[in-house]
């Protein structure tokens, strides 16, 4: 039976340096008078509530430091929430850790393979930790090694493996005990395009077995290609949630035209707003103008004409089609890559 994931108002403030990939938005230092020791306060999550359906591929999309890894850390028992609750299936993640760990498989952001073992032993010992008998675990290890194209290196120590091989082995290890819920934290970082496609195929195949998958990424293409639903996270908050199609449809107009003028005036902004098809005009830092519209290229000649009549020289134009990147930009005023 497929297992879902729920979180209720998860908050996390790190009081010491957070683990890699789980750093929050900013660092604040307590400096009130009379405070003997300055304490680092790093807010990472600010009330995350999510409900991921059994058997769903769900994506957490956001820039570095948004709180994706901290959310995964809490759901996988490795990070203690400051407040709030999380459940895997019916089990409270914090109170019933051993049961939760039975249900989940985790692929961390940075490989954490057991360097004292060979690739094959990593899988067989992992199987043993989960109580799988000797014969079935050997068989499953061989299948996975074959599937992840690691068969030839199976009996070598993993110390000398390339980054891509380590990542593949990490995924194989997470699947070794056939978990109901698979967590993948930035699974395709550092993978070559070929391996990334292999990984996507494997994730889809695993999903077809009825397993739930939660993946974090800052790659919109990956979120768009793989996920049934996506939550966009920034500064520890969910800023949008829905299917990729719904999210893209929620951007005013869909198209984004990023313009830069030599001489930008408020009159120019008003005139841009009055063009047919333009839904919203923004100029967050006055160095450029973001125009959300329901058409792209066909607006350019009108914008160029407007620039001439307003004596505002048009210096740069960039058109993006409806995408999750535009959505993120629309909600936060920043690019995902910032």
């Amino acid at each position, binding site marked *: 039976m497929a297992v879902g994931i729920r979180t209720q108002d998860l908050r996390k403030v*790190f009081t*010491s340096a*957070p*683990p890699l990939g*789980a750093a929050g938005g900013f660092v604040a230092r307590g400096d009130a008078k009379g405070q003997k020791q300055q304490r680092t306060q790093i807010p990472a999550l600010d009330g995350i509530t999510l409900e991921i359906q059994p058997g769903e591929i769900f994506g957490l999309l956001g820039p570095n430091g948004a709180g994706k890894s901290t959310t995964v*850390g809490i759901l*996988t*028992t*490795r*990070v*203690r929430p400051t407040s709030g609750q999380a459940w895997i299936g019916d089990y409270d993640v914090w109170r019933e*850790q*051993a*049961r939760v*760990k*039975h249900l*989940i498989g*985790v692929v*961390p952001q*940075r490989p*954490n*393979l*057991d*360097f*004292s*073992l060979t690739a094959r*032993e*990593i899988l067989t*010992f*992992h199987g*043993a*930790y*989960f*109580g799988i008998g000797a014969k079935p675990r050997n068989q499953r290890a061989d299948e996975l090694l074959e599937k992840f194209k690691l068969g030839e290196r199976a009996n070598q120590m993993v110390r000398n493996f390339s980054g891509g091989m380590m990542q593949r082995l990490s995924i194989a*290890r997470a699947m070794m005990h056939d978990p109901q819920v698979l967590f993948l934290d930035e699974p395709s970082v550092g993978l070559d395009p070929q391996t990334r496609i292999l990984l996507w195929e494997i994730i889809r195949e695993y999903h077809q077995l009825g397993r739930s998958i939660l993946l974090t990424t800052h790659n919109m293409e990956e979120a768009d290609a793989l996920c049934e639903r996506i939550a966009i996270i920034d500064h520890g908050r969910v800023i949008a949630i829905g299917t990729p199609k719904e999210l893209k449809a929620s951007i005013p107009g869909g198209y984004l035209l990023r313009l830069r003028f030599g001489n930008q005036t408020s009159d120019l902004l008003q005139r841009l707003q009055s063009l047919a098809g333009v839904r919203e005009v923004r100029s967050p830092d006055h160095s450029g103008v973001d125009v959300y519209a329901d058409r792209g290229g066909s607006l350019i000649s009108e914008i160029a004409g407007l620039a001439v009549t307003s004596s505002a020289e048009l210096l740069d134009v960039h058109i993006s089609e409806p995408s999750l990147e535009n959505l993120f930009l629309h909600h936060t005023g920043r690019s995902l890559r910032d």
Partner: protein
Amino acid sequence: MNWKTFGALLARDAHVARRNAVQLFLQTFLQPLLFVFIFGRVMVGSGYMPPQYKSLLVPGIIAISMVFTGIWAVTMPLIAEFQWTREIEDRLLAPISVPWIAIEKVIAGVLQAIVAGLVVIPLAWLILRPGVDFSMGTPLTFIAVIVLIATFSACGGLVLGCSINQQHVGLMFGMVITPMIFFGCTYYPWSALKNFPFLQKAVLINPLVYASEGMRATLVPQFPHLSIMAVLIALLFFDCLLLVLGLRQFEKKAVT
């Protein structure tokens, strides 16, 4: 409690220890055996040390070997696995509660320390014979001392492994291990410090003192030694203290 998982974690550590057996052997025994050879054989043979020193020296050497094997077996992997390779994470995700993962590490350390003690006894005897005068009057007490020493070393390893930053490993040897050896009554009995009354009291905070004196009390009772009851109580106290501290530190490290 999930015994299958616990057993598999122990099997993993046994497998790795077997794979590194030669390295472990040299690391554990080379230094104490050289010490036995120089002090027990060369110095005694050339007349600089009395012949009885052979028998006095061996219990201390056994204690050192056990204590440092236990500490090393737990501390070094923990420092590397928590800080450098982060590979402990795969065991932290095994379906067992976090303190049991630490207890497994302690048991693996205890077993290695006991093996070290049991191997160094015949080796030292071989190097020093003839003239080593051991008696095993109370085997049960001997077993109790051995187990308590091994436990204190592995629990100490847990505390150090979860407290020390990888950059400070060298400092740990200079600041913790070396003073512990020299003020651990390993090469001399505790009573030999009677001319330094302050020092004689101060060294009592060093658990290695009870390990060395305990080995002396059970193997060479003809030499002066602390009372066996005091040794057992002190070792038990250090075992409990270090275990509690170690589990607390481990949990702090394991869950952020």
